């Protein structure tokens, strides 16, 4: 299956703008009842943005429709068949890795979770040949950042009792 990228973008923008105007703005923006002029209402500006997006989305679709017959040599296509699915697996794996990194911070602290994340990213995700360097940098960089932010900048870097740093 092959989808023209710009047509897909046009559809996504149009659908998103309609969702914004008819669902998100009425449900997720509180507007006081005593607003005298519509232009001063908290919903006015997002509504204008929503309709602008709609016009842009329709504009992209029209432009794609007008060019439908021409075989565009410069147009990029999203072809899901010619891309190795392995790269999408890697993308998914990296998303899981990022979520795990985020969830690990409150459990073991930012420094140790960063050490682990660095080493996993460098050795297992990137498959580096420089394993020793990865381990050394993986420990030294988060520790150096901890020293700067905690002791110099006064930022409260998340800690836990597990291997508490001075």
């Amino acid at each position: 299956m092959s989808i023209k990228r710009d047509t897909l973008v046009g559809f996504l923008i149009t659908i998103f703008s309609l969702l914004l105007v008819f669902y998100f703005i009425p449900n997720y923006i509180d507007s006081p009842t005593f607003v005298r002029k519509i232009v001063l209402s908290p919903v006015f500006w997002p509504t204008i943005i929503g309709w602008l997006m709609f016009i842009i989305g329709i504009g992209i679709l029209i432009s794609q429709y007008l060019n439908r017959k021409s075989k565009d040599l410069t147009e990029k296509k999203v072809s899901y068949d010619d891309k190795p699915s392995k790269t999408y697996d890697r993308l998914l794996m990296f998303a899981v890795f990022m979520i795990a990194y985020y969830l690990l911070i409150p459990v073991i602290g930012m420094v140790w979770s960063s050490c682990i994340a660095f080493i996993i990213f460098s050795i297992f995700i990137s498959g580096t040949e420089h394993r020793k360097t990865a381990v050394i940098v993986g420990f030294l960089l988060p520790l150096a950042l901890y020293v700067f932010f905690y002791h110099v900048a006064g930022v409260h870097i998340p800690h836990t009792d597990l291997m508490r740093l001075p």
Partner: protein
Amino acid sequence: MNTLDILVNAFHLVATWNSILALGFGVLIGVIAGAIPGISVTMAVALALPFTFVLEPIVGILFLLGVYKGGIFGGSIPAILIKTPGTPASSATILDGYPMVKNGQAGKAMGMALYASCTADIISNLSLILFAGWLASFAMEFGPPEFFALIVFSLTIIAGIAGDKLLHGLFAATLGLLMATVGLDLVYGTDRFIMGNTDLMGGLNFIVVLIGLFAIPEIIAYARRPSDERAMVQSLGDDKLTFSEYKRCFRTICRGGVIGAILGSIPGIGAAPAAFLSYSEARRKSKNRDNFGKGEIEGVAAAESGNSGVSGATLIPLLALGIPGDVITAIIIGAFMIHGLQPGPLLFQNNADLVYALFMGLILSSIFMFFIGSFAVKVFKNIANIPKSILLPSVLVLCVFGGYAVNNSLFDVMVMFAMGGLGYVMTRLDLPSAPFLIAFVLGPLLEDNFRQSMLMSGGSADILFRGVITWCFWALTILTIIFLIRTYLKDKKYKKQLKMNALDVEVAK
């Protein structure tokens, strides 16, 4: 305070070890980051920003300006030596820089890049010093309607020039404006898109959005297709630039510096178009025009002076009007805000000593760039050889610490990751990130000035057309839209012609 007092105070601010070291260190980091293929100047400035929280305002801002200026020059090192531009602005440098390397003149090409960059940088800084104050005094007459019209004009240029796809750029800008509305309403204090999350009440933090948008997508792209490929770095050789060659190219360098300064002062244009315009003008006027593209030293001088001429001038709209000219100045606006300073005409009135201290620091940065640049060229081989499998995990860890340090909030780290995902999807869909970020910065200003205007007029739109200044900005906006549509249609026609020619060739076969 009279002018002399302001200058004396400014000198005291800049003539401290902290300021000088911060500037020098900033230039060094910028040159290194610009020289590493895969690390953009924007990413470097964004990652450097959290380190400035603890610094004095002048020290922090000088540090970031050093990173910016160093990064622009640093980008030319891989462009010349390994045919890989470190920054988009260095793309024009490849045209003659790499052929010179192939001809065994790498040292000469690098020398010219450095001298042209430093000379054009001085021209650009002088234009900033001459025009920013004048523009700020003119902008003192602006009220909310004038600022609203000005921001609409700036956003139109930024969204339109961001890429070859006008509508994609406009959508990215509207998305940035939408993201800027998240949080409490400016006038009534009611919720907007908070969805019950109290962390969102203050809106999405600019620095977090910025780091997420400009650093994380690179990491995701690398994680998808990891590779530690390294390019062959050519040796510099013994062939050095001579004074007579510099003298021969001096007119070209000055022209490039002026082109860069003019284009840099217009929001949204940026360094790459300035470099290409300077290059094409140099080729048009040169006696050696036939040698351009084959290793002409004047070509390197033109491209480098064009891109470096932009860096000081982009600060003109930033300092005088509070409007960022490009993504990097949008980051620098964030540094001002962190320290409780609002760039714009009032900055010249309330913090004139700081503004003049910045001017002095910028002049000093050109000198630092000369010495640090000379050193970086010699050690480039080591810089270029840092494997990406070590570099990008380091960037990820820096992002997490930097994103957290903004508000001591883990929620911000999550927002940063989410923005990184959004930035990656935007890249895949050809939606430019620059209009998104600049609209995100200008969004609250735009809405605030609009609503203030409406409050002043009791809801009448007439106030938006109240004087010559507003009419000028609206006229410029309309002219820009007409120009963009014409360019867009011309481009379409040209592409259609290309297709027809290609089809003819296919039929002939």
